């Protein structure tokens, strides 16, 4: 038996054990105090809606509140919520329907600040349902029986579209929703794979430039001045940190609302949107107040549609 030939494998096994030991050395993002600043990891999706937090960080509003903010891009509302629950994030951004769903399942969610709201003006909003230029669909009511793409099923897209269809006098139960990520939607519409698409900016402007025609403005039509998404945390977060984060966030929201050009500029840093497009897109509203009335309407609509199973009292979520 040659001892020399056992060595390579022995080394392999030892290396394996070492590496095993090394992984356990990895630690997740925790709030450790460093030179008086709180390290905070926020899970935020990289879309137009979240310009304020990026702008606020760049302008130092968070540093002013002694928060060392790291923004981690996530893929969607569900990822933000699970990242928060697992402790990866201390704060996160998600649309209200994702929050309703999480609350319904008993997850520990507490809203801290407004995220983004609809402009409330049909025809000039950052979210729309579009069809091809030559499509026979003219209004939201015509969507009955047609195929509409949304980025995630049983989420804010289909809920608000059903509400808009109802308002226009159509039957929302006959709409066939399919799931398609926003970036793939304009091409799918042009190729005729779907009858209508729901997208948010910058894809609204992109689709229009390809010849698509908007027929419904679902955020604006679902409920007046709809609050679309919120920043939230868990009830375990330190109340003082929450207060400071909320203050910084509100300052960021107000600043973004009052300086739309700077908001457009910051988009170039965290998204891959074409700069020419950025200049043309419709920006959302960034008020600091959460419109409770609109949220309750949306929660009730979601219940009626079967997206939620129990009635939610939105004031339980809100600060």
């Amino acid at each position, binding site marked *: *038996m040659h001892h020399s030939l056992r060595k*390579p494998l022995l080394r392999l096994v030892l290396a394996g054990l070492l590496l095993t030991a090394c992984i356990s050395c990895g630690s997740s993002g925790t709030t450790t105090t460093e030179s008086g600043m709180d390290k905070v990891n926020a899970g935020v999706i990289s879309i137009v809606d979240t310009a304020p937090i990026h702008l606020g960080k760049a302008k130092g509003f968070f540093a002013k509140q002694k928060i060392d903010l790291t923004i981690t891009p*996530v*893929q969607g509302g569900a*990822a933000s919520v*699970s990242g928060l629950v697992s402790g*990866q994030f201390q704060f996160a951004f998600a649309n209200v329907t994702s929050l309703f769903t999480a609350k319904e399942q008993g997850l520990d969610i507490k809203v801290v600040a407004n995220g983004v709201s609809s402009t409330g003006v049909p025809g000039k909003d950052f979210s729309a349902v579009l069809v091809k230029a030559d499509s026979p669909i003219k209004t939201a009511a015509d969507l009955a029986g047609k195929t509409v793409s949304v980025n995630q099923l049983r989420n804010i897209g289909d809920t608000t579209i059903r509400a808009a269809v109802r308002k226009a006098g159509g039957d929302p139960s006959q709409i066939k929703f399919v799931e398609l990520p926003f970036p793939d939607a304009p*091409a799918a519409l042009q190729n005729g794979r779907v009858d209508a698409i729901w997208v948010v900016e910058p894809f609204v402007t992109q689709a229009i430039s390809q010849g698509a025609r908007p027929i419904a403005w679902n955020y604006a039509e679902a409920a007046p001045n709809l609050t679309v998404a919120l920043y939230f945390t868990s009830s375990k977060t330190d109340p003082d940190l929450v207060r400071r984060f909320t203050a910084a966030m509100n300052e960021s929201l107000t600043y973004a609302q009052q300086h739309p050009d700077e908001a457009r500029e910051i988009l170039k840093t965290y998204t891959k949107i074409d700069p020419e497009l950025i200049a043309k897109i419709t920006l959302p509203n960034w008020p600091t107040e959460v419109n409770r009335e609109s949220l309750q309407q949306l929660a009730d609509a979601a219940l009626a549609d079967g997206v939620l199973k129990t009635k939610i009292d939105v004031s339980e979520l809100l600060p």
Partner: protein
Amino acid sequence: MVSRFWYGLAGLAVLLAVMEAVPRLGLVDPRFLPPASRILGELGALLATPELWAALGETMRGWGIGLAVAFTAAVAIGFVIGIVPGLRAATHSTIEFLRPIPSVALIPLATLLFGASLGSTLLLVIYASFWQVLIQVLYGVADLDTVAADTARAYRLGWWTRIRHLVWPTALPYVMTGLRLGATVAFILAITAELVIGSPGLGLEIQLAQSSGAVTTVYALVVLTGLIGIAVNLGVRLLERRVLAWHPSVRGEVPA
């Protein structure tokens, strides 16, 4: 034979020619299938960027750590099950049930527990590679030559001596096969986890390129993953040959 190499090269040349001609002739829309030259050009450009190497490093990190953990655990557990009498029969049904569970079934769980981070990649890689290695180790330990086993018993060799001189050399070829299969599976799952869940690595780059509509980049990255897959396979085969240099005639390999 030398001519095999030239035939192989010719085959590759034909593939490149077809991939160049089909989009250029308009048989397939070049927006969806760019010509081979453009794909390879994009690949070259990507290889010059540090971001690609960072992503590659992330993929190999997930692959390496996951494979190491799975391998070590599978060898240890496999030996214990194979040597301790009665354990094999007791664990048989459990192993046969858990083994065919597709690791992609764990994707939602990984997303919830770890999000888009290395942890998700590791969960998938370790789960999938573990079974590949374990099965081979169990075969190896069971493949003991009865004459040698009897001889060991006749000479009253202690169990540690028996493991070192009897079980280990017999099992070694199987262990190496397990390593090779596990390495391939680990690579596939690492890329899959990054693609579907979004943990950092080449798979994530592919998903981002696809979302942004950068079609040529998608193809270039796909070609890259194929090349890395081949490299991984070759690398482990080379290691296998060195470790088993003394064992070519008795290469007991269970069909994978």
